[in-house]
């Protein structure tokens, strides 16, 4: 991939981060930490990898995106708005009555949402069903599902992980947003699921480890999938919770964030500064 294209993707990710902060400003609080850890991945999918048309969100040939960790929905809302699925003004309805942007996504309210997630451990099973259905239709569309590392102790995940391998669903790509934190602390202290990659491997999946906040690594991994035609792929994306906000990174207190005005200001300033830097780099390179 050309450097300019990479910078453009990074810019979309930063604009999407700004959209997240915009929603939190409107709603006064939200699940920020996980949204910002997975937002580079979600940006890469919608802007580079997935076969989608924002103006035809129900196209039967579209690739599917399922956010199993539904509480990170601000990442998806932010990227969908950035990609043109809906008007950015809707972001300001976050937290208000009857908003199409509830605290966990609702497919009947917003274009681009494929599943009503929020209760953890559901997205992988739904994605397995989608992948099976697409294959039965001889449709070469793929299913991308983002799960959190904190949701992996849910047993239902492992039912789906076994089924995906049994049915050799190479059209299914699970991306584990491995930010190592959950609401009560470090995932490895609360319920250690490491080594996550080896667990997927032992169930019969191909596994890739990447830095999930490094756009070049994300794109390379996603372009390389499927690694083989007889296995689903798990991308273990090592990420930083609340990535992009210096005061919040890797701090569990920012899993759910109710900012005061000074934190909000700082968040906007840091993201806007990173956008300016990326824009300058883009100008220099072109």
């Amino acid at each position: 991939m050309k450097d300019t294209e990479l910078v453009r993707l990074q810019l979309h990710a930063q604009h999407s981060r700004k959209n997240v902060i915009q929603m939190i400003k409107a709603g006064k609080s939200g699940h920020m930490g996980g949204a910002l850890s997975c937002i580079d991945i979600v940006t890469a999918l919608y802007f580079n990898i997935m076969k989608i048309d924002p103006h035809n969100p129900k196209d039967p040939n579209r690739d599917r995106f399922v956010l199993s960790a539904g509480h990170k929905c601000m990442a998806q809302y932010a990227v969908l708005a950035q990609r043109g699925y809906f008007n950015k003004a809707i972001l300001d309805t976050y937290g208000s009555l009857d908003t199409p942007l509830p605290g966990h996504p609702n497919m009947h309210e917003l274009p681009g949402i494929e599943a009503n997630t929020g209760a953890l451990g559901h997205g992988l099973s739904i994605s397995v069903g989608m992948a099976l259905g697409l294959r039965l239709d001889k449709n070469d569309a793929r299913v991308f599902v983002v799960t959190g590392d904190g949701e992996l102790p849910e047993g239902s995940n492992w039912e789906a992980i076994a089924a995906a391998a049994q049915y050799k669903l190479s059209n299914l790509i699970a991306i584990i947003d491995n930010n190592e934190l959950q609401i009560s602390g470090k995932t490895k202290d609360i319920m250690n699921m490491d080594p996550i990659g080896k667990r997927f491997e032992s169930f019969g999946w191909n596994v890739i480890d990447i830095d999930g906040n490094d756009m070049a690594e994300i794109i390379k991994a996603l372009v390389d999938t499927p690694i083989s035609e007889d296995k689903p792929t798990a991308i273990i994306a090592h990420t930083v919770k609340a990535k992009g906000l210096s005061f919040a990174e890797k701090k569990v207190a920012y899993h759910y964030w109710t900012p005061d005005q000074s934190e909000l200001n700082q968040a906007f300033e840091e993201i806007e500064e990173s956008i300016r830097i990326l824009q300058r780099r883009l100008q220099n390179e072109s």
Partner: protein
Amino acid sequence: MSLEMIDPRKEFGRIITEIAENDERIVVLSADSGKSSGFGDFAEKFPERYFEFGIMEQGVIGIASGLATTGRIPVFCAIAPFVTSRPFEMLRNDLGYMKQNVKVVGRNGGMTYSDLGSTHHSLEDYAITRMIPGFVVLAPQDISELRNAVKTMLYHQGPVYMRIGSQKIPRIFDDSEFEIGKGRLIKEGIDATLVTTGYILTDVLSAVSILENEGISIEVIGMPTVSIIDKDMILKSIKKTRKIITIEEHYILGGLGAVVGELISEYDPISLKRIGLPHEYISSGPYDLLKEKYNMDAKGISKQIKEFIINKGVKI
């Protein structure tokens, strides 16, 4: 009424297989449960549309939801508690909230898995599935109604739960189109209205016949849809009889008795007798003896109805 007794599971699987010949959208999911659900032929005829997952009912409901998003009509049948209470959150979110066109069938329902004990009984399935917005809950009463309800279920847009038993059942009704939410006036009477649902109809009709011989005239309404009951039919009947009884192979809490109670307390509050199982983990043993123990055989049902009617001042 035909005297031939038919296994509802086999008949259910046969009908689905027959319809699936002409409808490629129908897919069958199995949690090591397909063959015992009457899907042996389906698996042989349509192997590409038959998915075996082993014992993982939560996963299967989620997978069914995903399959439905691609336009398929997934049918999943297994032992009733394993497709209702175990994956309840998947029914609620992946099917109900997502409005997915999935058909979940609980077989060996109620206490028909009698000797296997309480883990295998489902005496709360109507209660929990009817709580999910948009879920249709069906309990066909004879072989004819089962056949027609299966067809209606497949082509109803949205999630459906159907309970079937395991005991062989007769054909009581003539074939007619099954309409969700529609009651069936099975017998007219004057002393009380009896509302029944599911495969227990044979015992119910025997009980009514015992009472008839003793001079008690019961109006019998069959209600094969538990989630949406036939309000007009019930209110019209109780206007005449002024007494109402419900009977179901379910806890007396939360099921048909509760649905009818909710209806009449709002529109026409009269005395209601709920016949069903006590709210406890019931015994295990042969089905006939369980029915006898809990007064759910014809004799027990007639006894319960008679006591209620005498208490309410009907002279016999």
